[in-house]
């Protein structure tokens, strides 16, 4: 028989454990991407001396494959005295990689704020920090939540790349299970099904967030 229900049920708890690692990597990676992306986007607005090196870094990260970046952090950094465990290296690589994409998204949001909002902030003598925190970001971020959500799902779907540095996430766990029993059909199929289920759930959640923001913001 091609599909063994008994075996599938037996490995499901193991894969469930691995799914938690996948979710952790996704959430931590995306939290980093969301924050660092915003920092990149704001730094790029603060004049050419700051914008130039940031833009170079962004270009570098975007123009090279994520897998190479993961390998770089895990295998090359130790040669410079920075040793990271596989999970940390993987999360940092995911976070940095997606930060560069989030930066573009934030930039679009920030550029959509009319100049008059900045001028009113100056006229009211608000500090640059207050201007960003209270005036600009509350207007710039809600409209870009949908594209940020898309990147959350995209990042989630790239976590199997971490199996390349032996992080025990879903894919790596499935591979190990397969190599132990020589049955690949159930583990790999279940991993696919788990990813599908989680993608659908998170997409629904993002839609909820969008709707909540829309209610608060569009009047």
């Amino acid at each position, binding site marked *: 028989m091609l599909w063994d229900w008994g075996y599938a049920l037996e490995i499901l708890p193991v894969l469930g454990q691995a799914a938690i690692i996948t979710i952790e990597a996704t959430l931590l990676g995306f939290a980093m991407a969301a924050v660092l992306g915003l920092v990149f986007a704001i730094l790029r607005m603060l004049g050419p001396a700051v914008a130039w090196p940031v833009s170079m870094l962004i270009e570098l990260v975007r123009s090279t494959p994520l897998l190479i970046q993961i390998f770089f952090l895990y295998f090359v950094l130790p040669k410079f005295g920075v040793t990271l465990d596989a999970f940390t290296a993987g999360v940092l690589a995911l976070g940095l990689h997606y930060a560069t994409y989030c930066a573009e998204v934030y930039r679009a949001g920030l550029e959509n704020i009319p100049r*008059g*909002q900045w001028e*009113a902030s100056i*006229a*009211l*003598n608000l*500090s640059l920090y207050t201007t960003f925190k*209270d*005036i600009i970001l509350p207007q710039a971020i809600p409209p870009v939540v949908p594209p940020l959500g898309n990147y959350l799902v995209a990042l989630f779907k790239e976590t199997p790349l971490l199996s390349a540095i032996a992080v025990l996430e879903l894919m790596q766990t499935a591979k190990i299970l397969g190599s132990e029993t020589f049955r690949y059909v159930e583990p790999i199929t279940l991993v696919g099904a788990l990813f599908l289920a989680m993608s659908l759930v998170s997409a629904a959640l993002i839609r909820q967030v969008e709707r909540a923001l829309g209610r608060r913001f569009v*009047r």
Partner: protein
Amino acid sequence: MTLDRATPMVKFAGVTKRYGRLTVIDGLDFAIAHGEKVALIGPSGSGKTTVLRMLMTLERIDGGVIWVEGEPLTHVERGGRLVPADARHLRRVRGKIGMVFQHFNLFPHMTALKNCMEAPMTVLGLPKHQAAERAAELLDMVGLADKKNHYPSQLSGGQQQRVAIARALAMRPKVMLFDEVTSALDPELVGEVLNVIRKLGAEHDLTMLMVTHQMGFAKEFADRIAFFHRGKIEEEGKPEEFFGNPKNERTRQFLRAVLDAV
């Protein structure tokens, strides 16, 4: 520093502003006394709005010095010389100036009340209840006590502009700048905004500088009219003299054109 009323509230000394090769303000010398109300008029592109924007530090000046109550706005005196000031100095001097814009520029994600509370809380450090109280008083003064929990998008243009005036006043400025504040309004809403400005002029010891196309209002309200042409003041004077007996040929041409259009 002690200041007598003779020190001009604002003084432009040889101020120049260029956009590339185009000189929009050409060595402007212009003093405004404490409590004086000055209307800046002139054809579009004559530099009158730029004068307000330079004073609000929205435009960098390319030459000369702007003095506010005897203090240079964008410079500090060090060893008898004027050197560019740091952000702290700029913010302190700028705190004396408030501005109302043609397109209101209210914060759309805040209610009318919150619009008027933001700067007093974050810049002046007022506690929330005090900022709310001040904001409510000012909204009452501009006739919008019942709209304080409305968002800008729920208000008419005239109401939005009155909130913008209250918001600027919440910072207790000594100088108020009005940049074509009725130009974006439907004609029937102009009056309510002008009435608020009239009331301000009557009840407060504010220095006011306004760029306007409302000649009738300028004539009735201002202490002095300054006519701008190509980055310079071509003619200035008390409203009666200025409108009654303009001396400059360009002024006459301009007045004929705008008064004909009414």
